[in-house]
């Protein structure tokens, strides 16, 4: 279920590091909890965020959730296909429905994030 090469946060985001850049999304668990997603609000390219700073929101019919940046960085690319098709986030949260791609400020920040196994254990313990 949870790709081994990603890292995870307790706020249910995932991050995939590729050199100096990273892709960020929300986990399968998150989209399941939210239910049918109706709207995603994402930042513009160029925006900068510190670790755990909110960079956007995800909305279902009756709830809004903030998205928290797993690491510090600057946004380079935004997944605009989610504007027209927020449902994609329910279907492919780990793949095609990535949220933003960033230039990572400090790759060592990823070390404090959870591995796939740790995230799965976290999910189990909170159940």
């Amino acid at each position, binding site marked *: 279920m949870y790709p081994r090469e990603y890292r995870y946060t307790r706020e249910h985001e995932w991050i995939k590091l590729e050199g100096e850049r990273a892709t960020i999304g929300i986990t399968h668990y998150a989209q399941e909890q939210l239910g049918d997603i*109706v*709207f995603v609000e994402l930042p513009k390219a160029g925006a900068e965020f510190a670790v755990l700073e909110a960079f956007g929101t995800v*909305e279902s*019919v*009756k709830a809004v959730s903030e998205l928290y940046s797993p690491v510090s960085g600057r946004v380079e690319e935004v997944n605009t296909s989610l504007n027209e098709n927020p449902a994609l986030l329910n279907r492919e949260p780990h793949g095609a429905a990535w949220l933003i791609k960033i230039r990572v400020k400090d790759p060592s920040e990823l070390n404090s994030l959870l591995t796939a196994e740790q995230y799965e254990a976290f999910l189990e313990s909170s159940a």
Partner: protein
Amino acid sequence: MGDAMAKARPHVTPSEGLIFEKSSPGKHAYSLPPLDVPTVQPEEVLGAGFVRGEIAGFPEVSEIEIIRHFTRLSTWNYGVDTGMYPLGSCTMKYNPRINEVVARLEGLASEHPYQPAELAQGCLKILRALEQALLEITGMDAITLHPAAGAHGELTGILMVRAYLTAKGNPRQLVLIPDSAHGTNPATAAMAGYGVAPVKSNRAGQVDLDALRQLMTENVAALMITNPNTLGIFEDRIRDIAEIVHARGGVLYLDGANLNALAGVTRPGDFGADIVHLNLHKTFSTPHGGGGPGAGPVAVKRFLEPFLPLPVLEESPAGRLRWNFERPQSIGRVRAFYGNFGMHVRALAYILAHGPEGILQVTRDAVLNSNYIRKGLEDVYELSYPSPTLHETVFSDKRQARFGVRTMDIAKRLMDYGFHPYTVAFPLIVPGAMMIEPTESECKEELDLFIEALRAIAREAETDPDLVKTAPHTTRIRRLDEVTANRKPILRWKPAPPSAGPAPEVAD
């Protein structure tokens, strides 16, 4: 359900089109006397650039079509006139007909706010009488009737708090709000330029006094509290709460939404509140109208009086009433004119019909009804807190969730039994909340039917959960696709493009 008559009957023609879809050029319903002055050419008098073309898409229908259209629409609504609304903290009580009659009296409905005060004494006397009655009921010293609704009253109140504290040298930055509070509370604080810090509730469902003591600093402008709270539980330590807030120079704001549990029994002014807003459309019977209009007067203690919004109603020694605009410390205007006068008339009529004994009896019956329902359901639904409750009670769907049935499902199934649902999923501190307030307007029969209905649904949750999860089954319309409505909002009618066929208004 057998032969019992369903409360909200589906109409014979479930497919009632939009008014635009009934339109045909040449039909009309309006009636004007013939023009008795010379006609003018709009293009000449205004200039061609200022004159519009036709109002594209505006309906052209006859009077009988309008009567039938809106009458049919109305039959798809549930109302207090139809049956009980068990909505928590909404206080859906009877909307007395006499209130509607007096609000429409020619010499009241036709009065213009810019009439000189000498020619509006009738209106002003009504406002004065209402002010005095509300001050007595709340135990406060001064009041404004301007705010148009509860949330508007909240904003007015918090702006007054800000003005008061600013006058003392420091407006402060935070407002404390219990985690059980209504969403308007934090939204109001933000609109007034304050940050919000939540105060958690303890295991008894009340404000945690230790938590409050920790949070209450000299950077906190106010604590916004509802009493009884949204769980229906009276904050019996309210005087201690007031002390904690006052000791640090803060202001105690009471959200008066739940006044139906207190009127005639205790008064916010007597238990330490400095400022309270009232919802005339709740405790004082003015109709909800499908979502408004309401009215949200704000009553305050003497020290906040200078900050009341403009203008303030004053009485001369000779008994003449007028509006006073000379108020140097006022927060200013919170709206044009003087408030929702039409609702003030209705609220005053309600108070006059009841008198002191009536108001007290209302409160007693409201609390009796709620406890009767609590007793009738506490063996089948999970009570959120064991503490005694006043005019409302909160259950949770915990026992039914075992079968996959949640509070929203139970609420939808309740419609098949002819009732409007209770408040779903609020307050937020109770997962799966079912918030129930019957009000005093319900007779024992209606309460018994309601209890039976919920007990039946609890049984269905166990034996036939899918029936509950796909409810309602007998309403004109079934569960609506809210997801698509949010993803691709359609917020207005548009005429079909010429090439397409007629717009489909019914299922194929």
